[in-house]
């Protein structure tokens, strides 16, 4: 045994994964051949159906962090779509207009002793993608109004939606045959061969579907789209400030998850050859959620495992356990043990699993991310020590040739209810300039940044960037135009790595869409490779501070390093104007000096900079112009030395005593 383990340890991790995958594939292929038990094969086919559902919900809940409690609704939509178009429920009168469809094999003319009728005979293979598209359409329809809301409202709206769809199925009897359900749903055919009622063909079809959706999930996860979803999950505000269109990407996640469920609905109904409203109620949505939570939110293999475990628990383990208990009860003469039925209490067990996982193992059976081990001393020093300004990465920015103003703010007023956070502030940042904003706490500095980047609405005034009005644009549009920022209280994506954080910064500059991400054509590969290289280059600017830690999750980094990652992420957006909100806050004097040098070098490399800073030595060292805010208004503006002597400024900062001291 030990020798066996040693033998495995010698194989590299990637190879080990390949071997594991191969073994799993062989097992799945061979299982029905060697295990001649139709009920067990059927259980496995059901597990496959639930695994596809769990994969879909994982995109919504695990990747994008949107809690969908009515996921079964999309399952129902796919199921009824296939059911209605292959059963004998809806049969309009035949007319010659149907003839072209009949030639395609989608309908046939039948006669049940009255006029000729149309019988829909939609092909299973056509129905799979069609139902996926239809469900995705419904996903957009129901997502569009609600995805703008806070995440937890989405949970309740989807809960309601999940309840409505079975109600409609129950009440729209002419189409769905109501509570009795659709019967006589057509079995799939492949090259003229009918799947029939035997479990084995469904087993293989289900496994192919699972494999396909695992593939799609992984491709999406490791792409620009997947990174954007995870950024939204980690911090919506930061995601939108980094150029991610929240509504669009949330809708995409919602629609993709719905598409998975729609396709699964087709498979499931074809397998059961019936569809009743009860098959798609709240318990189903909950069960899929339990699978995702058990396996690990965001973990593709985890949720497949979760689905398999729960489904097999239900169909294999619990009946066995019940029998054992009854036998034991008979043996010891205990009435309760003879009566107990674990299969009946499976939903109770689901509830317990949900609570227990949340309390004791939130990352699930197979965590989506594993914490990287701490770096050894040697590993921390693989990259050279970088002191002074940045070297390398020329053309990180370029000042516009004609000079002019990068940013013009005029008469900006921002109110929060009765509180005026900014009143009539006018400010200009010349292209190629470094402007510092200082002021006591609560003077409106961060509100100014939030207004420029579109995070808070302004009540009056105007903001123009490079001559174009940007006031009222969404944060991601403002970033796209070349304005990037850091946050005063650091808003990174804590559970993602340094490299991923910096890659997300490039979101707005990359083009890969969902289809491109799945197909991964050469163009996409090239784009991704360039993006990764650029991220590595930017990280390398910070020398051994960040370079050895590129693969670590940022939540484990030191405070100063997190600040550096934020700067790196902002640089990755290819800004022309960089807004730095107290970049040196919480840093010691040596680190402050280092970062100040780096900011100066960014300016030399062609970036225009607007910064908020409290440390006056940093301000004096960096800024051409200093703007002083107090109580939301601008009280002084000028070169650092001049502003330092300004009496109003002294009063704002130091109060009356300061004035007396200045007089003395």
């Amino acid at each position, binding site marked *: 045994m030990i020798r066996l383990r040693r033998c495995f340890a010698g194989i590299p991790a990637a190879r080990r994964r390949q071997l594991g995958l191969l073994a799993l594939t062989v097992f799945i292929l061979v299982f029905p051949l060697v295990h001649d038990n139709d009920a067990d094969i059927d259980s496995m086919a059901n597990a496959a159906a639930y695994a596809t559902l769990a994969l879909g919900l994982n995109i919504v*809940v695990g990747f994008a*962090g949107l*809690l969908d*409690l009515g996921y079964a609704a999309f399952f129902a939509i796919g199921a009824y779509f296939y059911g209605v178009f292959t059963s004998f429920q809806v049969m309009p009168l035949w007319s010659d207009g149907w003839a072209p469809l009949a030639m395609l094999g989608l309908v046939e003319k039948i006669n049940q002793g009255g006029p000729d009728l149309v019988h829909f005979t939609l092909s299973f293979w056509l129905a799979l993608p069609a139902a996926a598209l239809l469900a995705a359409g419904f996903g957009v329809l129901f997502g569009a*109004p*609600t995805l*703008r*809301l806070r*995440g*937890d*409202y989405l*949970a*309740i*709206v989807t*809960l*309601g*939606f999940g*309840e*409505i769809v079975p*109600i*409609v199925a*129950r*009440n729209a009897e002419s189409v769905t045959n109501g509570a009795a359900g659709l019967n006589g749903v057509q079995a799939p055919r492949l090259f003229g061969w009918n799947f029939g009622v035997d479990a084995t063909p469904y087993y293989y079809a289900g496994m192919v579907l699972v494999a396909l959706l695992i593939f799609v999930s992984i491709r999406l996860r490791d792409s620009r789209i997947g990174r954007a979803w995870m950024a939204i*999950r980690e911090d919506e*505000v930061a995601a939108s400030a980094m150029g991610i269109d929240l509504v669009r990407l949330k809708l995409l996640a919602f629609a993709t998850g719905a598409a998975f469920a729609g396709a699964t609905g087709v498979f499931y109904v074809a397998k059961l050859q019936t569809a009743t409203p009860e098959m798609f109620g*709240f318990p189903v949505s*909950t069960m899929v*959620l339990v699978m995702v*939570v058990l396996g690990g939110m965001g973990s593709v293999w985890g949720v497949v495992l979760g689905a398999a475990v729960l489904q097999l628990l239900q169909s294999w383990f619990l009946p066995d356990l019940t029998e054992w208990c009854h036998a034991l009860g008979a043996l010891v003469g205990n009435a309760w043990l003879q009566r107990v039925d674990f299969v*009946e*209490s499976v*939903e*109770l067990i*689901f*509830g*317990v*699993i*949900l*609570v227990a996982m*949340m*309390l004791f193992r*939130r990352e699930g059976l197979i965590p989506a991310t594993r914490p990287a081990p701490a770096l050894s001393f040697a590993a921390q020093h693989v990259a050279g020590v970088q002191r002074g300004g940045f070297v390398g990465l020329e053309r990180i920015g370029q000042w516009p040739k004609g000079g002019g103003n990068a940013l013009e703010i005029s008469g900006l007023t921002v109110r929060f209810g009765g509180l005026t956070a900014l009143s009539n502030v006018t400010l200009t940042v010349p292209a190629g300039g470094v402007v510092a904003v200082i002021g006591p706490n609560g003077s409106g500095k961060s509100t100014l940044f939030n207004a420029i980047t579109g995070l808070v609405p302004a009540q009056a005034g105007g903001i123009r960037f490079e001559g174009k009005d940007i006031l009222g644009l969404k944060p991601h549009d403002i970033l796209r135009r070349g304005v990037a920022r850091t946050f005063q209280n650091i808003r990174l994506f804590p559970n993602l790595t340094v490299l991923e954080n910096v890659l997300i910064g490039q979101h707005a500059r990359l083009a890969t869409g969902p289809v491109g991400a799945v197909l991964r054509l050469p163009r996409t590969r090239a784009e991704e490779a360039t993006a990764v290289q650029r991220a590595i280059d930017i990280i390398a600017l910070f020398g051994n501070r960040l370079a050895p830690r590129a693969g670590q999750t940022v939540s484990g980094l030191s405070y100063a390093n997190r600040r550096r990652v934020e700067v790196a992420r902002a640089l990755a957006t290819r800004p022309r104007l960089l807004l730095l909100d107290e970049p040196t806050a919480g840093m010691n004097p040596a680190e402050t000096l280092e970062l100040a040098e780096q900011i100066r070098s960014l300016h030399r490399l062609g970036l225009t900079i607007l910064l908020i800073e409290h440390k006056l030595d940093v301000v004096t060292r960096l800024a051409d112009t200093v703007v002083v805010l107090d109580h939301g208004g601008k009280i002084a503006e000028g070169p650092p030395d001049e502003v330092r002597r300004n009496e109003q400024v002294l009063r704002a900062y130091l109060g009356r005593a300061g004035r007396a001291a200045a007089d003395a």
Partner: protein
Amino acid sequence: MTTFDLFLQQVINGLSLGAMYALLALGFTLVYGILELINFSHFNVFMVGSFIALWTLQQFGLSGQETILVGLPLAGVLLAAFAVTMLATGAIGVGIERFLLRPLRNVKGPAAMITTIGVSYILFNLILLTVGADSKNFPNPLPPLAFAVGGAVLRLREVLIWIVATLLMLALTFFVQRTKLGKAMRATAQDPEAARMMGVEVDRVIMTAFFLGSALAGASGLIFGLYYNFTSYLIGFNAGLRGFTAAVLGGIGNVPGAMLGGVIIGLVEAIGGQLIGTAWADVIIFAILVLVLVFRPAGLLGRLAPDRS
């Protein structure tokens, strides 16, 4: 019955339903106002409450609709039933908060909400497994008094439901507005951090919110039984969704808003069900929920707690 009488009758029914939903909505709103958490366990605390009420009434020897009480015995039995039910559900709420939600207080993301879903599911299945799937006859000890209001009938039970619900809501309003703990609760809803620094015991405030909300859910469960003459393990879902919709409609986090929202939802269900068909009542309620969330997310009366980011 004329159309107007029918309408009047549905208003009477709707006000009773509304009283039930308002009490339920208060629990959602109290907890959301402070923790910004949609408490799904509330759905089935309500359902469990109706079973505790059933059990309590059975202890007084009441089982079907046959036993009628009047005078002091009636008042005593009702008072005891409400007290026992509310204390018991209040304790359940406190237990859920203390042992299952407090450890997750500072965990970001949907962990706490998922936990409440799990708790709700556990309660649901516990009742299903112990009591069974068939609905249970709920005793109604009230004398069958009825008054004619125009062509509509106003039964004694309706009057009782209105009185009880009004008293409970007045008591809650008094508590939130006038007592020290109530003030602490409002402060915590505004800004838990600041409240903590001002010496408010936030843990105690949160526990109080869970106790009060769950106790009101228990009262609501008892009212459900009195109104419909039955209870079942299934009743939590629909009533909970309506209670939540009521809270959102009034402005989640807003105490008077929850009461107003509850009454409106009750009236909409009764009158809308009459006009369009009771099978579609859920669809109507859900449509209201979505429309409010889309067009007026702050609800009718606005939110008590400002949006924290």
